[in-house]
């Protein structure tokens, strides 16, 4: 059974973990800016290797193998010679319409080859959008009552960078020691971080959130939808196109972490499948590789005062006030008693829990009741993107809940 890395818990007990989640979002912004400026030429701030490339080359001119050392990434024709690439293609059961050349391109990170015509940045932007869309609509439609923090955590567990890096590792994608034109195109190519570099900066600055310098201010969960990325983490703001070259040059010197490069590769592969094989194949790829991973969403919850939450919930929904009742007990006066307590609203049982004390059993029963509420899943779930297919049945609105209990 595949086990996801459950790094995140809802609730206020755990401190927010600092992660590098913002790069993709920033890439997203920059790519949008690219399109708006509508100039395919490479920016002027790139290094010399790029300058000697012709402006907007459709295909890199083929050179003798001696000069492969001068290229930042392997030439296009090397993709057909690589056994690693072919076996990766076969191992992932990728559609045959996805050519090896595109698979090779999706393995080239922007830190290895800054030329946007040869790196996977554009593919990754597309794939990132697809992945987050598919995952979020699956989560929201399957569990319509999930609290937003749990949705963030589940998103991070399904398509977070750590998960994607683990997937790339499971797929058998190895990485180069240093990028270059002579390397096998079947390797993941990126420039590594210099030794001793800070991988996870504690505090991300330069976000779009107003008053971000006031760290002690309360950040509402809803504002994280607006200002933060899909995992609810702060993200760097996009840069205006005039400052783009300097930013790019600075980033290129730095290199990226292995985790980040792996997740960019998986994003790019998703985008490549979508581009070459179409939407149904991309959805199939998503279901087979991402949704098939087992994630126990009930483990993502963390309650600090479930009894209060449950009372508020019952009041909101016009249920009878919850009452804890002892269903069974054993060894009350002994060293290790067991109580089974059920939470009842009127005559209906909402949940039950067992514990070594009445307090614990009641607490656990409240947690179980709340999870029973939050983990409601309608029958025959359909996601909105299923309407994109030909001959889909008419759309029935999905269940929309009032939202989580706010005290």
């Amino acid at each position, binding site marked *: 059974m595949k086990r996801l890395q459950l790094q995140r818990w809802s609730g206020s007990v755990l401190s927010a973990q600092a992660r590098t989640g913002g790069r993709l979002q920033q890439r997203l912004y920059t790519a949008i800016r690219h399109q708006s400026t509508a100039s395919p030429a490479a920016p002027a701030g790139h290094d010399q290797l790029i300058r000697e490339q012709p402006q907007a080359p459709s295909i890199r001119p083929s050179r003798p193998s001696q000069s492969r050392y001068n290229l930042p990434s392997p030439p296009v024709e090397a993709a057909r010679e690589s056994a690693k690439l072919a076996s990766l293609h076969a191992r992932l059961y990728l559609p045959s319409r996805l050519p090896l050349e595109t698979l090779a391109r999706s393995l080239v990170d922007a830190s290895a080859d800054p030329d946007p015509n040869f790196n996977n940045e554009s593919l990754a932007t597309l794939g990132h959008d697809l992945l987050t869309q598919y995952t979020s609509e699956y989560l929201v439609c399957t569990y319509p009552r999930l609290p937003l923090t749990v949705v963030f955590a589940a998103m991070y567990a399904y398509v977070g960078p750590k998960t994607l890096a683990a997937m790339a590792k499971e797929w058998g994608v190895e990485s180069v020691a240093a990028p270059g034109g002579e390397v096998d195109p079947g390797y993941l190519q990126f420039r590594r971080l210099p030794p001793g570099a800070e991988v996870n900066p504690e505090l991300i600055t330069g976000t779009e959130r107003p008053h971000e310098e006031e760290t002690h201010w309360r950040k509402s969960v809803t504002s994280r939808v607006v200002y933060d990325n899909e995992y609810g983490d702060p993200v760097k703001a996009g840069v205006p196109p005039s400052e783009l070259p300097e930013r790019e040059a600075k980033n290129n010197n730095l290199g990226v972490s292995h985790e980040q490069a792996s997740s960019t590769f998986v994003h790019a592969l998703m985008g490549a499948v979508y581009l070459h094989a179409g939407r149904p194949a991309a959805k199939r790829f998503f279901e087979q590789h991402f949704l098939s991973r087992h994630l126990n969403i009930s483990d993502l919850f963390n309650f600090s005062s479930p009894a209060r939450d449950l009372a508020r919930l019952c009041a909101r929904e016009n249920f009878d006030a919850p009452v804890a009742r002892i269903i069974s007990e054993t060894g009350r006066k002994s060293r290790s008693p067991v109580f089974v307590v059920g939470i009842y609203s009127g005559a209906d049982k909402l949940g*039950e829990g067992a514990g070594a004390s009445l307090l614990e059993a009641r607490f656990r029963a409240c947690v179980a009741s709340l999870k029973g509420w939050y983990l409601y899943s309608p029958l025959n779930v359909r996601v909105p993107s299923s309407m994109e297919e030909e001959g889909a049945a008419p759309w029935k609105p999905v269940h929309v809940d009032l939202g989580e209990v706010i005290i």
Partner: protein
Amino acid sequence: MAHCIAAPKRPLVALPFLLPSPCESIALALRRNQSSYRRTKQRLRVKPDASFGSSLTHTQEDHIVHNPPSSAPSVYLTPTKFLPSGDIRRNLRLASVKNNDAEALPPVVRAPSEKKYHLTPSDIREIRRLRATDPMMWSRLKLAKHFECSPIFISLVCETSPQKKEIQKRVLEAVQSRWGSKRRMAREDRQLRKDAWGRDE
């Protein structure tokens, strides 16, 4: 199951295999092995539990035995009350489950206290005044006893002075400083266990 194991006490004549046959009389060890083996087999032939399906009535039919071990219900099984009104499962379950009376419900853990709502705004002003004038004397518990309300309500109404908070903090530190390593570890463990409740571990 104990009665099943003790049950087979039958006359020897009814168990012909226990009698030594002429050919087996030489191999004493073999005979003893065989008899013990058969006795074990015999004891293993227990009557199936009643929950395994009524095989007496439907002897000829194939049936599925569903006898799960007793465990807490899954959290993915939404309680009927929590199902939205449009969900089809709600009607299905309501049809299948027979109605329970309120008397059949198990006993409550703690009787729910009836809320009285007897305090007036003047009472609340009085509470605040008392707490502000003499915080040492009028603690939360004393105020709650005096006004016949819960300490939580007192904390909702007013807040104590920072000096009192400081003193309380020092008292707590003084008490905690006298704890040994065992008591400290036990208290920490208790808090960790309590945190684990919320994560359902």
